[in-house]
């Protein structure tokens, strides 16, 4: 995306709830939450070349953190938001230390394994997590002087945090640290030979991605009003990976767009036909064959892809 596209998109997104229906506002809220989630994964997949199939772990752990805190009466956003983000980051640090010892498909499978373990804990430890039923009745957060309950104020909360996350992730991607991550993606052995501690760089990226996924998990818990083990299941990790790749990995704007396309397709298709999975699969095949750089690559006309 070009430089002008970001501010333009931000202005449009800021004005949307004023003119459109409650349904559109709610859908857009969900899209922005998943856009943060997808952009966080893009830092790993698109920039660092680490394909994770367990990213839902950090999203889900943060969502459960909010669920548990609000079940014990803690509703202040000033408390739950940092707590959720910290939980996502801490879980990512723990998983990263182990999973980053492996590479490629092995890394992918290790992240999957850790996410499935988190799923099993949420599923089995019914006394704390509510088991299959999950944690229900999460009220929208309290901020002094403002009721975030109704769709429009809540949309603006999500919107502001989306802008902040997008800005921050773009800054990180454009920093020397981000350049080092791209270096690892292109040739890790050479980066190591040049004296970079690639393990620590990758771990840093993993923790940042976990924190950002945690942010989206916090917002999702409030958006949905309840958390169940499904948010941790591997299909959740698969869905966000699809958003990243469909939109265009390594562009940040692409995964955000991918989140929108997948969720809109899902909403539209599932209200007209039961063949939603078929449509998603076919869309996927088409993108791989016809638009190797994802939807963003298609839009900006940059076809060449380094391999």
């Amino acid at each position, binding site marked *: 995306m070009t430089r002008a596209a970001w501010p333009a998109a931000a202005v449009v997104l800021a004005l949307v709830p004023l003119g459109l229906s409650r349904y559109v506002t709610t859908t857009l809220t969900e899209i922005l939450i998943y856009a943060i989630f997808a952009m966080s994964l893009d830092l790993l997949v698109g920039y660092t070349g680490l*394909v994770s199939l367990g990213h839902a772990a950090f999203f889900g752990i943060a969502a459960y953190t909010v669920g548990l805190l609000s079940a014990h009466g803690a509703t202040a956003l000033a408390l739950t938001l940092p707590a959720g983000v910290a939980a996502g980051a801490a879980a990512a640090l723990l998983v990263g230390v*182990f999973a980053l*010892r*492996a*590479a*490629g*498909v*092995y890394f992918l*499978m*290790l992240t*999957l*394994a*850790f996410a*499935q*373990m988190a*799923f*099993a804990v949420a*599923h*089995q430890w019914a006394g704390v997590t509510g088991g299959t039923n999950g944690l229900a009745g999460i009220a929208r957060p309290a901020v002094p002087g403002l009721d975030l309950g109704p769709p429009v104020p809540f949309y603006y909360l999500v919107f502001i945090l989306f802008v902040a996350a997008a800005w921050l992730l773009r800054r990180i991607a454009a920093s020397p640290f981000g350049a080092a991550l791209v270096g690892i993606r292109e040739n890790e052995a050479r980066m190591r030979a040049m004296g970079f501690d690639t393990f620590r760089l990758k771990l840093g990226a993993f923790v940042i991605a976990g924190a950002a996924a945690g942010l989206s998990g916090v917002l999702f818990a409030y958006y949905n009003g309840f958390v169940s083990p499904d948010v941790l299941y*591997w*299909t959740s990790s*698969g869905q966000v990976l*699809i958003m990243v*790749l469909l939109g265009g*990995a390594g562009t940040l704007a692409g995964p955000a767009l991918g989140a929108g396309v997948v969720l809109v397709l899902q909403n539209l298709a599932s209200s007209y036909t039961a*063949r*939603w*999975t*078929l449509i*998603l*699969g*076919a*869309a*996927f*095949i088409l*993108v*791989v*064959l016809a638009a*190797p750089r994802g939807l963003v690559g298609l839009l900006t006309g940059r076809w060449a*892809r380094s*391999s």
Partner: protein
Amino acid sequence: MTFYVLQALNGLAYSMLLFLLAAGLSLIFGLMDVVNLAHGGFYMLGAYLGLSFVRWTGSFWVAVVLVPPLVAAGGFLLEWEFLRPLYRRTHLDQILLTFGFAFVISDVVRWLWGAEVQSLAAPPGLDRSIPMLGTLFPAYRLFVIALGGALALGLWLGLSRTRLGAIVRAGVANKEMTQAMGINIAAVFTGVFAFGTGLAGLAGVIAAPIQGVFPGVDFETLIVTLIVVVVGGLGTLTGSFWGSLLIGEAETFGKTLLPEAALVVIYLVMAAVLLVRPRGLFGGRTR
């Protein structure tokens, strides 16, 4: 004691099914660096085709003979039409493409055969239980163990003792060099891909009387198979074999001895193996 022996046999039957799946997936990866995420879809396709053939012809054995080539034809089509143009692109593209096909197969099967759980009876003669150790054990599971063992032996002999096997091994070791020796590597790719998916289809038919047939079995199976392949080490037949045994037994014993931890036992085993050997038990080569 009897309990443990019977569970070990149950685990062995499950392991053999896993081996049929893992062998194909691992060979395909070893040769063309493609993790075929549609592998579970081909397995499910095999199971449902088997179901239909048994209903039409009344014979389980007709299904066992006809389904694998049909599923292999599907694999052939996927490789020939869609995967082939992508070999020059990144591995991610190929994985993504097979992921798209996994979704398509999953939904087409649900469309054609419905979403309810269906079952397939074991064929006549094998649909009884055999007295063993003072109790009864299903004859069909013994058949699965024998068939799986025979196929494992056959695959190993084929790969290590025949000319074709030598070509495939050469392709795994070094594609460019194999091609330079005058081998049509593209044809080998297509052949191995079709063969591997055919094995997955066979596993689907064979597994149907034990596991039942239901939508969602494709992704469940895919994940377990990936775990087996990763534990054993990608691209090695030996690894697939021992990985299947380890995961098959771990899952079977986990379910009966630690039902509350059943969901994680195989993931724990995989994590433990990968933390000690990041390339799996037999995956020594660097990639």
